[in-house]
């Protein structure tokens, strides 16, 4: 789905959860933003790696797939609120029958996202964390 240059450009974010942060107001942006909407030109944007831990805010089980995701049906997408306060959309993985609930804790892991056009796009997915 993503042409090689478009996918390659975002590798630091997709592989390593590198977002941005405004040094002026401290807000963290993952996925990255290139200008702080609060501070605009007064802001000071720098790269910032998020830890990849968060809680599920909402989720849905997808039966009618996006193009390129047909083989994965049904798959679960979740909106996750990360510890740093920002939210990110990700597929859930390693569910294995686990019943997803709003509030579940997850951690980001490195998985295959899609394989359209032969180049394999890797990126982040969220895996439930078992509260021990």
């Amino acid at each position: 789905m993503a042409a090689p240059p478009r996918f390659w450009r975002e590798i630091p974010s997709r592989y390593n959860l590198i977002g941005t942060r405004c040094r002026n107001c401290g807000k963290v942006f993952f996925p990255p933003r290139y200008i702080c909407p609060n501070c605009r030109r007064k802001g000071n944007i720098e790269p910032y790696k998020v830890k990849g831990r968060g809680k599920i805010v909402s989720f849905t089980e997808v039966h009618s797939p996006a193009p390129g995701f047909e083989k994965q049906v049904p798959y679960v997408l979740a909106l996750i609120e990360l510890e740093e306060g920002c939210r990110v959309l990700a597929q859930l993985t390693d569910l294995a029958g686990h019943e997803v609930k709003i509030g579940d804790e997850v951690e980001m892991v490195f998985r295959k996202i899609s394989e359209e056009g032969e180049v394999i796009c890797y990126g982040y997915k969220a895996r439930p964390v078992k509260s021990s």
Partner: protein
Amino acid sequence: MPGAGIVGYGVYLPIYRIKISEIARVWGKKADVGIEEKSVAGPDEDTATMAVEAARNALKRAGVNPKEIGAVYVGSESPPYAVKPTATIVAEAVEATPETTAADYEFACKAGTAALQACVGLVSSGQIKYAMAIGSDSAQCRPGDALELTAAAGAACYIVGSASNECLAIFEGLYSYTTDTPDFWRREGKPYPSHGGRFTGKPAYFRHVLAAAQGLMRKLNLTPQDFDFVVLHQPNPKFPMQAAQELGFSPEKILPGLIVQHVGNTYSASSLIGLAAVLDQAKPNQRILVVSYGSGAGSDAFSLKTTEVLESKKPLAPSVEYYIKRKVLIDYGTYSKLKYLGG
């Protein structure tokens, strides 16, 4: 002494397991390979994703700056691309790029230890500070073939640094034994490998594992009594148990590193996951013999001595036992679907 040691180790096993009895049932076979269950990669997993999680675990234990890793080598016989290295994907995902060398290694199930040897060499020469070796496989096999009862998925990673008080284990020596022995192969374009049946036993596995073990012990002037643990390549439990016995090792030295009965044959990760299981349990100043085996054929042997540092490193990442216990059983239908989706 090579002048290198292990500063971090990590493993990864996928969550899915299938009972060998379930596979045997479908094909009307006997499940007599001595393995309970084997691990199966999920639809969004492959050699690269498993390698990355194992590598990140190793980094958690090593605690080194990934930018100081000067080499990333991935050994596998199931890389995601026929042409495009897995090692660069892993190197990027552990943030070791761009000032690093990388390459993929291939030698059936001993690709991981071949990568490890290269790391030991590079670090010992003083050219780089840390080097990362990974063995990772999501093994392919023809449905209904005997291999289906054992072929599994998993990864292990070792970060090598120069022998210093950073290391949780020090390499005492390396020895390899290699011949051209066609016991197992796959031609380009064919989806599944072929093997030589009983030919994979004495002239292949046993010849090379025994010769490598004996060669290493001779080189270092050691006997089985000098070792606390022996870890051998484990395509099933029978081969390593028998080889260990023939070498003169008592069962309690091979059992801690024998995990194939729980997870199956993880190919390039096999002896390396076994080693990790031993490291999870070993005490300081214990000696470990590791001998891998790759069809085609060859064995790499290492002698490792643990240090005081090991104890503090163990809890920094999940243990082999954690991954063994983290499992969900699937049936043959689901297994077939996962295999099909895995490509």
